[in-house]
């Protein structure tokens, strides 16, 4: 698996960079980064700081252990799971295709942290449900929208789309904006014509 190319951060001085909401902006002093690097030397891959946000990228199999470590370690105590989501990195890098993003927040220390891990299509991500009860629906939504399977999830079924939705997972980049099937709106005979065809990516 080639080294995942992360997004080059274009640092610009802005008022947003000075806030300490995500912990010290210098990665070395950040407690979470330091402790995770010590605890999981092989799984720890990279840390990115953009605006005041600190993002740790870990290897996929170690996701659950890292998050559990972040939650239970007395010095870190990230005990509030804010969000789990995924990003389809189809146009931004070669492999792995998806990024599962876990947003954590420590209520006692009032600090946020983001943990990411790369997932390929069809690979299983260790589910965070045994650690956070709040992860249940968030992971079901990731599965529903991206097709990422969470191993250990008690009840992985579609949450937003109807159970019998057979057209794949809509938030993937290769899923056309108006879906595969052309629906005839009530009151019309033929479906609306597709003007712009499939999604063309305008250049940067």
């Amino acid at each position, binding site marked *: 698996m080639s080294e995942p190319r992360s997004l080059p951060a274009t640092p610009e001085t802005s008022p947003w960079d000075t806030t300490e909401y995500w912990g010290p902006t210098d990665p070395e002093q950040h407690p979470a980064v330091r402790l995770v690097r010590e605890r999981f030397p092989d799984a720890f891959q990279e840390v990115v700081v953009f605006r005041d946000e600190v993002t740790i990228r870990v290897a996929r199999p170690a996701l659950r252990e890292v998050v559990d470590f972040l*939650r239970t370690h007395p010095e870190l105590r990230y005990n509030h799971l804010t969000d789990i989501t995924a990003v389809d990195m189809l146009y931004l890098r070669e492999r792995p295709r998806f990024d599962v993003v876990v947003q954590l927040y420590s209520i*006692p220390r*009032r600090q946020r942290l983001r943990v990411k891990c790369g997932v390929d299509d069809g690979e299983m991500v260790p589910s965070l449900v*045994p650690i956070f009860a709040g992860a*249940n629906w968030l992971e079901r939504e990731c599965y529903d929208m991206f097709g990422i399977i969470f191993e250990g999830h*008690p009840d992985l079924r579609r949450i937003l789309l109807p159970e019998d939705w057979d057209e794949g997972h809509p938030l993937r980049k290769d899923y056309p904006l108006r879906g595969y099937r052309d629906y005839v709106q009530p009151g019309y005979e033929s479906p609306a014509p597709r003007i712009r065809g499939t999604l063309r990516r305008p250049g940067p």
Partner: protein
Amino acid sequence: MTVQVLVFWLLALVAILGALGVVAARNPIHSAIGLVLSFLNVAAIYLIARAEFLAVVQVIVYAGAVIVLVVFVTMLVHPDDLPEFHGRRPLRIATGLVLGLALLAEVSAAILAHGLRGTPGPWTDDTIAAVGGNTRALGQVLYSDFMLAIQLTALLLLAATIGAIALARPEAVSERLAAARRVMTISLAHPRGLDQPALPAALPEPQNGRVKEAGGGRPIVLARTADEFTEQPAWGEWRAR
């Protein structure tokens, strides 16, 4: 006086039809309706016999409560759970009918043949009116001569209610709930380890917020800064209870 007899026979006829309805109806609810019909007519007959109190009690107790209870049970109970009392039907109907008719002929012959012997009592219409109506008269007699009977009936009713409650007590739902809770954890995926911060018995003092009595006997804690109540939630005495 013939009007009285005419009305009596009319009511009697409807009462008998109701009773037949009870026996003949296929659906128990229909037979219950037949029963109510016949009881109401019998109550009307009591009115003719100037036993108003009896008529009203009959309507309230019998038609209003007992049969409603029976209808309740008919609706609650699964039909094929009911204990079976009789096997095949056709032969039984025949014997029942024949027996019934024979008995009816016999009894009515006896009634018509012999008059009634008994010493006429003191309670004629005018004496009842003097006392102030059937109810007052009943009351006086009831609470003078039949005091013992009243106590016994009271005891009987008490025993009946206690018995009914003991018999029909529904299974406690709580332990079924606990069982279901172990099984039923659909979107309730439980975190394995749940850090349980040791919670103090008393409500922690708000560092620089205040406790405001917010009505309904319930305090609300107002925190002014973001640091208080993050380690220890404002959750003291509730837990201790």
